[in-house]
């Protein structure tokens, strides 16, 4: 696949797009990203001169839902991303090549574009039994991952698996699956969490890197700020019902029919950072809350281990007992009230039996 030396401009011209349209595209993109007119020229120059960035897309322990989401991207269309913007040199799920042929591409890219390709990882490596729970091409996936990350420019962690661990890393995690940042420590990692991430968020992250040749600005947890800096709750169209105190109490009540806030039935929107309430899904058709179900927080760390999807507070498991913070707090407060009552009674008994005379307080006391 030597086509990686072609520029973005070469490819779109070949597809019959005029220079006029290309310049228009650059101006619109610069404007929508809030950049000045100079940026449009810079962007055009970059797309004309820079070779397309080779992308290696690897799969560890995962369910392929990230790929399924990715191929449904509408803005930009995934075909434009895969065929024009980047040079997707390796993706064992999408590519035609298989077996040794496919494996050779990995080595070829690693040598030819040393330090210049992007490694996109879907899924994560299990570490238990020397990584034997995920064998890819006859070798533990974790070995291949380390090898390919070693010469990459940057790493994209697709989905909750690569970012946080997801279901295979949920307790008790028998294969000891870990997020990729536990294995790759010397490369910048862009976390794009979600189970799966939104298609437009995935292609958006790639478009940004291709256009500007650098990483998008990340938050302190390594997620691109442009898609993950606000909670579902902050941009939720049901938010006015939250502020008004109008809540769905059960799934079939009048409030549910009226489309009130799902906070009381455990919506995790207030603790989930993602773009669902703005970008939405399937080309902007809907998102979970719009369909009447609360957010389950799939883009958050350890979302399988935080108790029920329908509770706003983490279920606390200690000594084999499961309880919420309120049950524990109420039980403890009850125990303390009982303790205080007993102590009061004991104090009263002591006071009555020892019969302290108030007037004798100031007199010298005999031996204690």
């Amino acid at each position, binding site marked *: 696949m030597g086509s990686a030396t072609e520029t973005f401009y070469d490819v779109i011209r070949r597809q019959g797009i005029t220079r006029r349209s290309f310049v228009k595209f650059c101006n619109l993109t610069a404007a929508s990203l809030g950049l000045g007119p100079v940026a449009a020229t810079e962007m055009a120059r970059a797309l004309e001169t820079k070779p397309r960035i080779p992308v290696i897309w690897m799969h560890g322990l995962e369910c392929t839902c990230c790929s399924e989401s990715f191929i449904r991207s509408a803005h930009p269309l995934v075909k434009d991303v895969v065929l024009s913007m980047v040079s997707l040199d390796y993706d064992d799920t999408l590519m035609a090549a298989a077996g040794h042929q496919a494996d050779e591409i990995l080595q070829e890219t690693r040598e030819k574009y040393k330090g210049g390709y992007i490694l996109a990882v879907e899924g994560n490596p299990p570490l238990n039994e020397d990584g034997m729970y995920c064998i890819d091409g006859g070798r533990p996936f974790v070995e291949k991952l380390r090898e390919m990350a070693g010469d990459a420019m940057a790493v994209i962690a697709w989905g909750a698996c690569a970012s*946080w661990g997801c279901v295979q890393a949920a307790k008790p995690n028998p294969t000891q699956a870990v997020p990729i940042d536990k294995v790759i420590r010397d490369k910048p990692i862009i976390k794009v969490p979600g189970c799966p991430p939104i298609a437009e968020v995935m292609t958006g992250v790639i478009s940004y890197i291709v256009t500007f040749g650098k990483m998008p600005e990340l*938050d*302190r*947890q390594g997620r691109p*700020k442009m898609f993950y*800096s*606000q*909670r579902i709750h*902050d941009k939720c169209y049901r938010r*006015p*019902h*939250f*502020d*008004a*105190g*109008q*809540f769905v*109490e059960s799934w079939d009540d009048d*409030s549910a029919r009226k489309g*009130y806030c799902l*906070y*009381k039935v455990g919506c*995790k929107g*207030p*603790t989930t950072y993602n773009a669902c309430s703005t970008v939405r899904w399937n080309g902007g058709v809907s998102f979970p809350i719009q369909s009447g179900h609360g957010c389950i*927080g799939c883009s*958050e*760390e*350890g*979302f399988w281990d*935080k108790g029920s999807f329908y509770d*706003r*507070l*983490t279920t*606390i498991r200690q000594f084999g007992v499961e309880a919420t*913070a*309120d049950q*524990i*707090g*109420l039980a*403890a*407060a009850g125990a*303390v*009230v009982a303790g*205080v009552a007993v*102590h*009061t009674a*004991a*104090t009263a008994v*002591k*006071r009555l039996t020892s019969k302290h005379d108030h007037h004798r*307080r*100031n007199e*010298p*006391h005999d031996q*204690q």
Partner: protein
Amino acid sequence: MAHDAKMLTGVMDASDDVIVTGPSIYVYEAPVRLWHWGNALCITILAVTGYFIGSPPPTMPGEASGSFLFGYIRFAHFAAGQVLAVAFLARILWAFWGNKYSRQIFYLPVWEKTWWRGVLREARWYLFLEKEPYKYIGHNPLAHTAMFAMFTLFNLGMIITGFALYSEGAGRDSWPAKLFGWVFDIWPNSQDVHTLHHLGMWVIVIFAIIHIYAAVREDIMSRQTMISTMISGERQFRDEREG
């Protein structure tokens, strides 16, 4: 008569009996008392509104534009929290100006043997193993431990987790996010921070039960004033015996 001279140091009741009262010492200065009662008010508001934030009241009728109940509940919580935080900072500052009792809650004299003995004796007093407690001008060592744990360590923990949660709504570029965003390095999923902050509310409730019980009990049982001391700042002793 000698009667007149005695008037200066004692009080007289209807039957002309002159009773000499114990000495009184100014312990809690005005800023400390103000902080105590301001804190009590803030914590009450915080606990009640905080409970409702976790378990909202029944659904409001009418249009969403017609009510802002949950908004007001959250506003009260945030406002009380910020007052509590500023009061805590002011209280720390006062520790530099105030008398030595104003510094007590900020550290434990773990290097002093007498203090440890005091803790033990005070614990024995609560277990009915001592006939009477010692007298203390400031906090007794056991109360001192409780105050340090609650109002230095725990209070700080609630302020930090509270501002971290507040930063989620205030935005990633807001000052609370810059100052307290590191909390999410420890617990990346903010649901855990919500849970801890919520458990903290129950710790406060339990503390309040014990605190009020102990204050009332010691006001009756001990050899010194308790509740009125936090009102007037004066501590009076009911006898003049040592210890």
